């Protein structure tokens, strides 16, 4: 079943085009990774889906409803967003941070039910002991998990993640990916993740969406997308792809030309 339909999406700042004519369907409870070189428009794509940015052209439908016609609060009840990092000026406790995820469901104030839900999420992720700690004092891995916990507290059908593993060690990378996979399998969540590590994308996602210069180059399962040709075309890198237990793994060998040009 289709959860999100993106139809002919274009977005740009002033003179530069960031996204051009993107059309794709995202199926319900699937794990989709978005890969591509820096500046391909991956993060912008996520922000358009989440209505943080308004596209110049094209429509995004979630559960067959156009997000242009939805209030921001309504979008937030359907789509959660896990940012790359969260920089705050003032100290915030972990509990307050996760409680923010309840905001789209609240009237003016949080009540006991909302707090109970936050506790539930924290306990489920094993973060409850950090509840009163200051968010800034935690390690990158813990911070990332708390941002995911906030998205979980938001109780949405769709979670967008912007490079959640970018500055984590391999243990925490696996931990975050397993968490997301668990949500997709057990909670019917649809996850869209921007990720640079092709092997992580390959190991965990159902589908990979490969982008370059604001366009989709290839969409499909990891085996069909992560080919030597695609990688050379998109990244300008000669790579060796070998398959282990049916999952393709990419070993970059050398650059072709100076940069990945258009």
């Amino acid at each position, binding site marked *: 079943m289709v959860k999100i339909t993106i139809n002919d999406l274009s977005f740009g700042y002033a003179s530069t085009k960031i996204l051009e004519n993107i059309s794709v369907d995202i199926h319900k409870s699937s794990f989709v990774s978005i890969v591509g070189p820096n500046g391909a428009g991956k993060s912008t794509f996520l*922000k358009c889906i*989440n*209505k*943080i940015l308004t596209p110049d052209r094209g429509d995004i439908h979630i559960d067959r409803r156009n997000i242009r016609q939805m*209030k*921001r*609060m*309504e*979008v*937030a*009840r359907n*789509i*959660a*967003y896990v*940012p790359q990092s*969260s*920089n*705050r*000026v*003032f*100290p*915030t*406790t972990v*509990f*307050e*941070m996760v409680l*923010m*995820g309840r*905001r*789209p469901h*609240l009237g*003016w*104030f*949080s009540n006991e039910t909302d707090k109970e839900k936050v*506790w539930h999420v*924290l*306990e*489920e*992720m*094993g973060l*409850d*002991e950090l*509840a*009163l700690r*200051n968010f800034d*004092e935690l390690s990158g891995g*813990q911070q990332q*998990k708390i941002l995911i916990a906030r998205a979980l507290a*938001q109780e949405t059908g769709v979670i967008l993640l912007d490079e959640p593993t970018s500055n984590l060690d391999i243990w925490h990378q*696996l*931990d*975050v990916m*397993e*968490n997301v996979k*668990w*949500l997709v399998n057990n909670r019917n969540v649809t996850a869209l993740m921007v990720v640079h590590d092709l092997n992580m994308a390959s190991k965990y996602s159902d589908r990979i969406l490969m982008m370059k210069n604001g366009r989709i180059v290839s969409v499909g399962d990891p085996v069909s997308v992560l080919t030597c040709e695609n990688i050379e075309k998109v990244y300008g890198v000669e790579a060796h792809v070998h398959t282990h237990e049916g999952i393709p793994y990419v070993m970059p060998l050398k650059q072709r030309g100076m940069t990945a040009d258009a």
Partner: protein
Amino acid sequence: MLGLFKKQSRKSDTDSSGSSHRKQTSDARSDYQRYVGRKMLFMFVMLALVIFLGAFIVTVGPLEVSVIDVYKILFSRFFPDYFINADLPSQVVWNIRLPRIVAGIMAGFGLGICGCVMQSVLKNPLASPFTLGISSGASFGVAVAAVMGVGIISGPYLLVGNAFLFSMLCAMFIIALSSLKGATSETLILAGIAINYLFSSLSDLFHYFATDEQLRLMVSWGMGDLSAFSWSNFMLLLCIFVFCTPLLYLKANDLNIMVIGDENAKSLGIDANRVRMFCMLLASLLIATIVCFTGTIAFIGLVAPHMARMVIGSDHKYLAPASGLLGALVLIVADVVGMNIVRPTIVPTGIMTSLLGVPFFMYLILKRKRKEFW
């Protein structure tokens, strides 16, 4: 550090480990309950201190009136049949001391809560209620009134009216800037500073051409003084208070989210720009009203939120009222010290708040533990 991944295997563990986990869980929850309890206690103590100090300060002053007489005078206003008082002490207590305390509490509370709101919507710890140029606008308004004698309303409210008009003008300019261009908080702060400089220079121009008497009026107004407040202004200030503070407080949850940045706020359903404009508008209205009666009392709006944050963390449901209470507390204490330290001279409130507040704030900064709020 246990993820869902680990949790799945934990589910199949024996009962004993399950119950130990549950125990940890209840620990975290009871810690949280205690944390909330401490915050409530702090607020209650603050409120009690403000009331207690107010009740104490009303008995202190250059004119010796006994404590019992003071309260007789106060009660006689509500129950005129039971108490009969001498005229002069009654005038002093009811028309000089009490309005001053009420003004101190209201101004301090307003400055504290608006400082807190401004810091959060502008995401800047250096922001204060005067960041939008309100104080310099107000002093320009006063300068115009003092030197040229012109204003929107004449008579006794000439100064006050002008101060209010020009401070709102400054604030509205910046708010309009944010609505038209969707400006970021950095732009707003820069614009505020620019406006501050503009109106300061304009005021200086008036200072330069003013006579001694006019200059004295302007300078003493700029220091911030509670003595200008009287019962006739009380209802107006109260109305603005009753209108602005509850509306600001209703935004407490949104203010919590504003701090994490505009894009993140949007992803949680908050239209950051709209919340920022709404809060700045209400805060400006409240502050302009306070400033036009009391002059610029600069230090409290910047520092009271920081003090409150050090003690009870940054959840605005507690932070906003705590900032207000702390502001009120610092202001009335500073004012009573200023009134009595070099009798019979009264040191202006604005000077005294900085003289007393700065060392206290320094102490708080230096002793603050990095790891915790307490």
